């Protein structure tokens, strides 16, 4: 066998293996942690009466960054326990897919926080964040395990429904309700999908 044929075959094997690789670390712990964080953040937001847009945007974006860091830590611990690299090809694929929509959500959040505005400005962030997050998760879905493939669409549908429903209301609900909407949507959906994955993981051999 020639060197060229061997190199060609090797490249083909690696390309094929990467094509079907899905992210096989259990997503249940980071999803459940994100869900619990979302719900508790909403509860604190409602009762701490964080009414200004600046506080609303900064509060939720700060929590999102902490949740992201906690999720990465959980994934890193799983990878370390198995002696595997954390940044596998599907993990990199997921990160690339999520990066642009996350940055767009962050830009919208920062720009809204800097503009003076009341509940209306803060409320407009909720559907936008849902849509951006949904797009990111959906773009990453090729690398996600089967149980998570529909998650992105759920966020997109929820964001779109909220976007169309809000202008129909005679009066924009208070910011306490915006915190509640964040808790129900981000917290609730993460908890639901975390539980689904947890049940699926228990139903088969752990990877």
């Amino acid at each position, binding site marked *: 066998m020639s060197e060229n044929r061997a*190199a060609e075959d*090797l490249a083909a094997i690696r390309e094929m293996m990467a094509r079907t690789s*899905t992210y096989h670390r259990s997503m249940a712990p980071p999803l459940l942690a994100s869900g619990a964080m979302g719900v508790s953040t909403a509860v604190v937001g409602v009762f701490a009466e964080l009414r200004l847009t600046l506080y609303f945007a900064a509060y939720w974006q700060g929590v999102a960054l902490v949740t992201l860091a906690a999720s990465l830590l959980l994934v890193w611990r799983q990878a370390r326990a198995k002696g595997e690299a954390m940044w596998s090809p599907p993990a990199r694929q997921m990160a690339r897919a999520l990066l642009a929509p996350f940055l767009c959500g962050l830009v919208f959040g920062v720009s809204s926080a800097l503009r003076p505005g009341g509940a209306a400005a803060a409320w407009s962030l909720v559907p936008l964040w849902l849509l951006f997050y949904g797009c990111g998760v959906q773009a990453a879905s090729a690398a996600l395990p089967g149980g998570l493939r529909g998650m992105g669409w759920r966020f997109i549908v929820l964001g779109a429904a909220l976007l169309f429903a809000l202008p129909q209301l005679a009066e924009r609900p208070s910011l306490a309700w915006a915190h509640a909407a964040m808790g129900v949507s981000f917290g609730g959906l993460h908890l639901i999908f975390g539980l689904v994955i947890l049940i699926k993981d228990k139903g088969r051999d752990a990877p």
Partner: protein
Amino acid sequence: MSPIPELDKIIHERKRMAIMSLLAGARSLSFTELRDQLELTDGNLSVHIKTLQRAGYLAVTKSVRQRRPLTTLALTEDGRAALETYINQLEDIIRRARGEPP
């Protein structure tokens, strides 16, 4: 220098090598997923699957999902080991051709 080891003829066939590689990346794939990825006909894929199954490289599971038959394929431990050996042999061939130590 040690002689070049003989490559596994079962994996060496390009379509079978592709089947093994796709399955190595995934835990398992359905017959239709594999057929669509490789753009093969049902008959052609079946022949390759039988060859790999006879060699003990592939496990085939038949079940019913939503009232439809579902054929799921996965690499066996032997299949995974054979593919790993094959990859090592290819790397060895490249190293030898470049005059690098094995």
